[in-house]
């Protein structure tokens, strides 16, 4: 029995070798089959992505994968769709267990560092010339480490867009969104008096306030170079500017600005709560613009929703026109790919990130980091969003700071909203966590 198995293995191995040689120096493959040359032998690539929510862009990506397989019948992509909340954990665990898929969604910045350190990613520099005309340097920066490119993004997500119902603001006496923080607080008071929730937030899962809200508010007070400086030890969270940014939360809590169930509502409920006009404003990512306006079947309601950025603060060091943005959905490749599998994966990337992808995304109202022509059918909402976010991007907190610090901030925000902690205490806790994570 054992002997028989060994024999088959030997035979398979030698045929593989022969077919590989017969392929005229074509890339050797460990997946080669007995019949056919490597050029048209079927290849299967495993892939993992977190496109499980019914967002418009997720559907586009999946359709593109399907189309690629139709055009390349000899390449099969076996994809697993994993909910975002579990995605990072799963990939990380697989990497730890040495069983990463061939292709996977890779988060940029600090999330990518451990993979770089463990040397499990394959650089894609050899195919980068494909995009030299449409992808500017800054759009690629998040996926570039030590001069090597590891992935390219599909879209640009601005996490801190303030959406507001124009008629509700008008009722409170505001024709347009306030330009300064003091006016903003005034608006909050007037909205509260008129009996609506001023600002809807669903912070049960903790990240929305940290990522969406504090990325923008922090940047207004401290400027965009603050977080990198903290990482280098040149600045501290206990610096007065950052403490002031944290006390924005307690200012708003004092005014009852948020919905009372801020800590038990999640981010999707938050969007619906706003759409139902129970709140005058909400803050969430630019991706949600499609749900709020672009694909909203109620045109009047869609037109009634305005977008803005968090207002300027007195004495703030940040650019009040900057929005906190992050690039998303770069597909990374496993370093273990070789031969036909590697070629197939490179071919897939070249197909996937065609200018056509970016244009389709734009026509659905999604901001992309690529310099492609805005399609004729792009909605006015997208143009409005592009104009609002054109002044460069500020860092998003969780793409820059270590997980332990993020964790302290997230729980600290909940503690401030339930009046168990002050801004000063939280700033100190964050700095302690920062010092500890450096060790």
């Amino acid at each position, binding site marked *: 029995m054992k002997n028989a198995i060994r024999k088959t293995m030997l035979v398979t191995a030698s045929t593989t070798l022969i077919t590989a040689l017969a392929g005229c120096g074509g890339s050797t493959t460990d997946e080669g089959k007995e019949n056919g040359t490597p050029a048209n032998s079927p290849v299967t690539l495993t892939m993992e992505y977190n496109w499980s929510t019914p967002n418009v862009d997720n559907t586009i990506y999946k359709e593109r994968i399907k189309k690629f397989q139709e055009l390349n019948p000899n390449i099969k992509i076996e994809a697993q769709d994993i909910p975002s909340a579990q995605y990072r954990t799963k990939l990380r665990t697989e990497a730890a267990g040495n069983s990463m898929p061939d292709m996977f969604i890779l988060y940029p910045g600090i999330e990518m560092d451990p993979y770089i350190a463990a040397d499990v990613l394959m650089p894609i520099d050899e195919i980068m010339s494909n995009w030299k005309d449409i992808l500017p340097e800054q759009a690629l920066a998040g996926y570039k480490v030590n001069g090597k490119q590891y992935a390219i993004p599909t879209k640009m997500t601005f996490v801190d867009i303030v959406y507001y119902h124009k008629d509700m603001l008008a009722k409170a006496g505001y024709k347009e969104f306030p330009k300064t923080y003091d006016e903003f607080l005034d608006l909050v008071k007037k909205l509260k008096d008129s009996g609506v929730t001023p600002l809807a937030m669903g912070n049960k899962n*903790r990240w929305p306030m940290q990522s969406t809200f504090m990325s923008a508010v922090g940047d207004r007070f401290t400027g965009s170079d603050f977080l990198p400086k903290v990482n280098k030890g040149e600045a501290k969270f206990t610096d007065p500017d950052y403490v002031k940014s944290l006390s924005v939360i307690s200012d708003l809590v004092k005014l009852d600005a948020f919905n009372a169930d*801020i800590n038990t509502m999640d981010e999707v409920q938050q969007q619906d709560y706003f759409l139902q006009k*129970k709140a005058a404003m909400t803050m969430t990512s630019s991706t949600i613009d499609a749900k709020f306006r672009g694909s909203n079947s109620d045109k009047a309601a869609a037109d009634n929703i305005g977008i803005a950025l968090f207002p300027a603060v007195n004495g703030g060091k940040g650019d009040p026109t900057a929005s906190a943005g992050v690039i998303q959905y770069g597909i990374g490749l496993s370093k273990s790919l070789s031969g036909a599998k590697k070629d197939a994966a490179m071919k897939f990337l070249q197909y996937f990130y065609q200018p056509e992808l970016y244009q389709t995304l734009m026509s659905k109202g999604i901001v992309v980091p690529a310099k492609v022509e805005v399609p004729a059918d792009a909605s006015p909402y997208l143009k409005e969003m592009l104009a609002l976010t054109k002044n460069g991007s500020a860092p998003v907190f969780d793409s820059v700071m270590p997980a332990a610090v993020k*964790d302290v901030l997230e729980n600290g925000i*909940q503690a401030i909203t*339930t009046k168990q902690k002050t801004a000063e205490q939280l700033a100190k806790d964050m700095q302690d966590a920062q010092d500890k994570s450096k060790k």
Partner: protein
Amino acid sequence: MHVLKRTGWTVFIGMLPALVIYIGIALVPIGMSFYYSFFNWDGLSPMRYIGLDNFTSTLKDSVFWKGVGNNLIMMATGLLGQLPLGLFFALMLNRGLRGIKAYRSMLFLPVVISAVIVSIIWGMVFKIENGMLNGLLELVGLGSWQQDWLGNPKLGMLSISVAYIWQNYGFYMVIFLAALQNISAEIKEAAVMDGATGWKQFWYVTLPMLKETIWVTLVFAISNSFRVFDLIYVMTAGGPAHNTEVMTIYMYNNAFQNMSFGGGSAVSMLILVFSLIAIYAANLLTRRSQ
């Protein structure tokens, strides 16, 4: 003698598959966890031996102790809420009322429902807006008592306890019911002859006969209370600000959110130690009263 010897072997061979599975999915992972708990490891970079640092830093963390406190609340909820309620319903059902099957299934239903669904149901009960509990309070004229039941740091654990009792009393009810039905009618008749009825019968006859069963349910209630995770995770995710966090959630956040597998393993070892201590204490208590 000969037969006995042979049965011993057959029993062992029969148990072997289960034993292998048990060792593979229970004992080996515990051993691995124990090993990891001495390392600083994020899953990707090389593991670094740090001795007992994971344990000392966990034991120094006030959030961990908050979790221990909340676990004790869960334990008390199990022992003082689920067990008496389970016994109460078992006694009711044991009296053989009409439609007993329907009642039995109804009361047992929460045990069958997945914890995630239970959490979602109770999340809807405790909601602020259009929440059932707040609606009920409004209806009976107690509108001023309306609350953010889960989001309020003082009430969060209490609200979760109610859901936890509802979820699990049926499990103990079935165990008690099985035990009650095993008490033979003759004993009851004899008790009645001796003049023991109602409370007296329960106190001097039924309860002592349930002693072994109670011991089993105690162990279940204690170990379940240390394992509770999904119920709380779905309702509040341990929030707001750690107020409803239990040790398992603390472990999950440590290991998988903050990517400190060593730290998480250390916490899981502590959970094991704590539950063993609690079960041992329960053992001592029941032995003493015997």
